């Protein structure tokens, strides 16, 4: 990447926005060297902090004209290195774009800018009896732009779905710097569902500068049940029983003994003493329905060996139960100096088998693994513990973590349920999809970003060369010659 090209982008950025929003000072650039996955670090060449879509589009256009790669970053809480900067590129920070442009409870919609914090959408809507359903554990600090990029989930997506089910429209800056509307406030916008492709594309198809989101009516009643079991097998059987009974809880979360130990040490959540596993089960909806479902869920927990059941019906008690679960990742820091947060998915019915296999892996490698997961939909978050000051420990943890992903793939699952592929898991993509699958996905990339400038190097292990007529290759592409890309 030429310094001239980058200087041209910096100059355009300074024309577009106040000079202090264009960062070139190395010490300040380093502040942005990583996102929530801190062991990948790259200092960007330039950071810009636009105030609005026009400024942002202007910067992207300058990048396109000068062939400079760019990466968008929201709050930087991502766990797959999706917002890892490009050393020769521009990092576009959207945190200043934090206006709730419209709040329309009568239409069950809000229009928000990418820097708006997830929980702030709910805070704005709550006085009207509405809320924004997707609730990643980081919802107090993560932003909507990042949620859209990653298709974030959360504990309640078992019933309510993911970000993609709650975003109906977006204003998108394409990798050429055009500002286009995709989708809309009304359902079923005619044409291809471009928005469906953009949500979860991890910033590789452009930058979203506003999102039209669905607001969901606050339920009449919410009941949260904490159930203590002797083992994860019992808790898993209870989960299966609940699903088989036709109950669709808002959430079913499981933690194993090690995860409980960590949560107790960190936040004193007072989970049932001596439990080998706990379930947090939340039921919500019309009061009459929740009451009927609750009786059944309670019975199923007891039948499957729950030795302690605690019900919370008011927000304070509910928050206490959730505190242990939502702080689980950070809490592990109390029992281990370092840890890897894994994110894999299995068919829910494979849970006992996979947990057993993880336990075996842990035993044979001597690497401790704490398990926290969304039991209802089979989304596992094994926390692989290690001490980086011990030689080889990090490597051993990496191996266990990778082996867990292979377990997920082997059971017909996924390498990521909600954290994204990012930089971290691009290398695993060929284990889940074959070459033709990846090639076909990248046709979408080529339609949006033929020059491979929007968050390059993420999601796909090898970029596809775009714009070639099948069967008519003229010599080797420069990227191919340089060994950077393969021609499929």
């Amino acid at each position, binding site marked *: 990447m030429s310094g001239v090209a980058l200087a041209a982008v910096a100059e355009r950025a300074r024309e577009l926005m106040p000079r202090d929003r264009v960062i070139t000072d190395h010490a300040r650039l380093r502040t942005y060297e990583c996102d929530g996955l801190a062991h990948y670090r790259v200092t960007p060449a330039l950071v810009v902090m636009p105030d609005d879509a026009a400024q942002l589009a202007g910067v992207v256009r300058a990048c396109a004209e000068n062939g400079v790669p760019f990466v968008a970053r929201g709050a930087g809480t991502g766990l797959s290195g999706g917002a890892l900067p490009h050393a020769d590129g521009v990092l576009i920070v959207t945190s200043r774009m934090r206006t709730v442009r419209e709040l329309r409870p*009568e*239409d069950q919609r809000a229009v928000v800018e990418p820097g708006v914090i997830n929980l702030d959408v709910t805070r704005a809507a709550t006085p009207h009896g509405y809320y924004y359903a997707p609730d990643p554990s980081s919802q107090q600090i993560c932003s909507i732009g990042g949620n859209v990029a990653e298709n974030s989930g959360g504990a309640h997506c078992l019933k309510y779905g993911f970000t993609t089910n709650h975003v109906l429209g977006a204003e998108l800056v394409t990798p050429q710097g055009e500002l286009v509307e995709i989708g809309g406030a009304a359902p079923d916008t005619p044409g291809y569902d471009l928005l*469906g492709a953009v949500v979860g594309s991890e910033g590789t198809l452009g930058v979203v500068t506003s999102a039209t989101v669905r607001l969901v009516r606050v339920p009449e009643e919410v009941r949260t049940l904490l159930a203590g079991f002797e083992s994860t097998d019992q808790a898993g059987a209870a989960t299966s029983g609940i699903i088989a009974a036709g109950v669709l809880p808002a959430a079913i979360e499981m933690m194993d003994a090690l995860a409980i130990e960590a949560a107790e040490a960190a936040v004193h959540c007072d989970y049932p003493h001596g439990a080998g596993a706990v379930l947090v089960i939340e039921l919500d*909806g019309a009061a009459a329905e929740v009451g009927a479902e609750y009786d059944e869920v309670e019975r199923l927990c007891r039948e499957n060996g729950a030795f302690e059941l605690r019900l919370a019906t008011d927000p304070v008690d509910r928050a206490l139960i959730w505190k242990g679960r939502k702080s689980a990742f950070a809490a592990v820091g109390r029992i281990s100096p370092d840890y890897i947060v894994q994110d894999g998915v299995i068919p*829910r019915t494979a849970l006992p088998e996979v947990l057993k296999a993880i336990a075996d892996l842990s035993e044979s490698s001597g690497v401790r693994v704490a398990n926290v997961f969304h039991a209802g939909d089979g989304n596992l978050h094994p926390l692989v513990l290690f001490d980086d000051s011990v030689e080889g420990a990090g490597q051993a943890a990496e191996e266990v973590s990778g082996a867990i992903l292979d377990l997920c793939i082997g059971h017909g699952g996924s390498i990521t349920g909600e954290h994204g592929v990012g930089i971290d898991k691009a290398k695993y993509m060929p284990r889940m999809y074959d070459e033709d*699958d990846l090639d076909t996905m990248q046709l979408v990339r080529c339609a949006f970003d033929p020059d491979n400038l929007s968050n390059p190097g993420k999601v796909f292990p090898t970029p596809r060369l775009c714009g070639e007529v099948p069967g008519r290759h003229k010599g080797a592409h420069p990227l191919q010659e340089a060994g950077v890309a393969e021609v499929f």
Partner: protein
Amino acid sequence: MTVLERTAREAVGSACEEVRDPTAADEVDGVAPLLVARPASTEQVAEVMRAAAAHGLTVVPRGAGTKLSWGLPPLSADLLLDLGGLDRVLDHAAGDLVVATQAGARMATVQQALAGSRQRLAVDETVPGATVGGTLATNASGPRRMLTGTARDLLIGVTVVRADGVVAKAGGRVVKNVAGYDLGKLVIGSLGTLAVVTEALFRLHPVAEAQRWVSVAAADAPADVHRLVQAVVHAQAVPSAVEVDRPAGGGGRLGVLLEGRRDGVEQRAATVAGLLGAGATIDEEPPAGWTSYPWQEADVAVKLTFVLSGLEDVLAAAREAGADLRGSAGTGVVYAALPGDQPTDRLAAAVRTLRSACARHRGHAVVLDAPAEVKRAVDVWGPVPGVGLMRRVKDQFDPEHRLSPGRFVGGI
């Protein structure tokens, strides 16, 4: 038959056992194909597509053909690809609430396979006989979209065959999965212009223990209907559907579906009946026409979308346009039927009336189906945002424009 046609036919014939001459029933919206192929597997579809690619044949995929005339007539349809041979439900993982099915399986067949486990694919069958693939291609949905969404909310994995015959998968067997691009979203509603879907994986829902339909005669004034719909939608009774049925000549009903546990449903139904006011009835069976479109053969079929606050305006516009109206008033997706035997300029004016009402409320009016002369005279799609990007997607997937050319938005 030209030499070229004969070689093309031989190539397709060697790719797939079942190849035949078309009959009148094989016409695609008035366009007669040269050849009909009925492959029996994804591999055979791929072989047929490779043969079509080698000979430059245009291809129109077909399921049961119940909505094949939606969109514009294709500019060309050399090969009709009949997916009726891919009619198997492949795997029902009841404990995981997931089903894998071939695209040519009928929706009713899929539901039958799930019924024993008291599960269902939560997409209503809006036209009897529709297949999974056709439902995806047209993004068809019915009343239950209010609670469980549409195909885009339920499709978790897809196998497609590209125009060049390459087979590709996206998504998978698990509901929660953010690995890679969600190609399933792109093929939904694409009218067979992007790729041929051969297999689909869906998340399922449990069949509720009890169902109650609460309904009331629709008031004549749009404002009164609007008020009742708003009252139900913004209450906390969690309806599965809020439907309006308003014939052009007056009358009609508002219907609300509640599903759940027996005790819960009865209480919720009583709550909703209270909101709908005197005259509301509670039934255990759906009202007539519950999941069907309001149109008849030869009508002009229009899909109207809008944000909820626009319902009153849209109802008034439908009355002005002389349309029978039915659909999901609770989500802002309703269907209008205009008698097709009117002068085309009157029909064009009626479509404009509907379209401007929808546009005022951030939505669209799309003519799904109409007699050929009407499709020529009216703007079928109306303005579509992002059409430039859509063309670029099309150009990547089908650079030679051989898949259902011309059926879709912007000439795609």
